[in-house]
């Protein structure tokens, strides 16, 4: 019966499983969720490894085609988002940095300013906020574009032309997003720290700009730079993997695209938070 249903509606087993009626008992429901989680995890891992393999193996293949696509994706996930990031940097500076500086000054704890800024802005808020914004603006577009291309048979057409869809469609998006998240995080952090001081200055906090930036640079270590780069590149890479996986790796119909886009963005948020937790552990260990 189940096989007939799948054939009748051209659904894969996983899709059929997702659309099955809710189980009667709570343990069955949890079991189903766990099973779906494991299927997704398996798919994402395989997709990430395939993409990495293609990046390494085909770095010299069709450079005249992939190069412009790569620049286009870096522009889309980086340069095109700069105005929005400048606005968010100002907001972050006002909401978090400015108020933190002002509060620390009121209790005479400006000596902790540097380490507070580094932990709050450089290690945590900057990368995470940048990743979330890129996920919302570009990641969701990835799912829709790739899902539509898959549903309209464009991916099949690439295969028929002997063009590797992962190389042509995924690699530029993954690299573009990794570079984009890294670059935008740097701009976001610099913008937030600068605008934060500006707002603190407007609140008459008795702190010279030289002292403010000296404290921050003293609190920053090489490890912060290294882990910041690693973390932002990892955010970009995994956001692109999650969104591209949902767009490309499953056969979709046009009506499935919006639903899958929502799922991909939710999973992207979860992946970012889990990665962030992993990096907190790394900071604690090192």
């Amino acid at each position, binding site marked *: 019966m189940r096989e007939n249903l799948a054939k009748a509606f*051209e659904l894969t087993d996983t899709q059929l499983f997702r659309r099955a009626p809710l189980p009667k008992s709570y343990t069955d429901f949890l079991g189903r969720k766990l099973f779906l989680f494991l299927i997704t995890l398996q798919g994402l891992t395989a997709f990430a490894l395939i993409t990495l393999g293609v990046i390494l193996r085909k770095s010299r293949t069709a450079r005249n*085609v992939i190069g412009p696509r790569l620049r286009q994706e870096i522009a889309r996930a980086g340069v095109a988002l700069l105005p929005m990031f400048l606005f968010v940097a100002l907001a972050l500076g006002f909401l978090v940095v400015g108020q933190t500086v002002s509060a620390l000054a009121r209790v005479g704890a400006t000596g902790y300013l540097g380490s507070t800024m580094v932990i709050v802005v450089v290690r945590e808020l900057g990368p995470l906020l940048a990743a979330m914004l890129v996920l919302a603006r570009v990641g969701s577009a990835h799912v829709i574009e790739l899902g539509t*291309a898959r549903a*309209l048979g464009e991916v099949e057409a690439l295969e028929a032309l002997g*063009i590797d869809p992962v190389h*042509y469609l995924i690699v530029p998006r993954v690299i573009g997003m990794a570079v984009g998240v890294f670059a935008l995080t740097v701009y976001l952090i610099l913008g937030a720290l600068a605008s934060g001081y500006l707002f603190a200055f407007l609140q008459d906090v008795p702190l010279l700009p030289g002292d403010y930036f000296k404290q921050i640079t003293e609190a920053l270590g090489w490890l912060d730079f290294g882990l910041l780069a690693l973390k932002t590149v990892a955010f970009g890479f995994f956001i692109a993997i999650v969104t591209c996986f949902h767009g490309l790796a499953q056969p979709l119909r046009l009506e499935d695209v919006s639903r899958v886009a929502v799922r991909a963005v939710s999973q992207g948020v979860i992946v970012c938070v889990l990665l962030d937790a992993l990096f907190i552990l790394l900071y604690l260990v090192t």
Partner: protein
Amino acid sequence: MSENENQPAVEMRDVSVATMRDIGFVVLEDVNWQVAPGEFWTVAGQPNSGKSDFLKLVAGLMAPVKGECKLFGTDTRMFGEAKLAERLHVGLVFAGGQLFNQLTLRENVSLPLQYHQDLTPAAAAQEVQTLLELVELTPLADITPSNVSDNWRRRAALARALILKPKLLLLDDPLAGLGLRHLHWWLRFLDQLSHGHGWAGGQPMTIVATTDDLRPWRSENRKFALVHDKKFFPFGAWNEVESANDPVVKELLAVPLETTI
């Protein structure tokens, strides 16, 4: 490839074909078929009889569930990265064209050439322009597919499949829904390719086209096959089709009320 020159263009032995979406759902069974280089075959069948999946299997996009399918002597199961050169001897024109909607028609045609020969758009321009002129697409070349009619999208899909000068051209229902002028153009152009067009260096191109309407394809120079009820019937010449007592063949030859030809 040179050692495979005398091999059949397509050779199928006891092949079972499944759908692309569900490999457990078999649409054709026990297909035994051979296409010699330079032959022009038309495979007819009713809508949803499995013609498209059959063509995708011939193109090497999926493996047979059972049996063996060889193109110019190479098993399509072996069509990996190492056999890319062999795979590029096959050009496939999808039923809906399946052009890349983000690219212009010119970019669509240029992409396979640029990708496989690592060319810049400027370096590929001359060859692309020649082909665009051949399919009369030059005035529309810089428009995206969604802004041109289906008639011209099909031609762009044909040009995209021809840009790498394939030896075997597969066409999925290329005449469906075409205007009369376009339909005649297609039949004439495919015949030219089949007899040896300058674009392919004068070499006769092997062509396999599917259809659900046999009438426009009538010709003494073509061979015909029928897909029906999960079976594949290679008839051969047109007179064998006409003399066939199969009700499905008669239906495919029948003239519908809204005929345009």
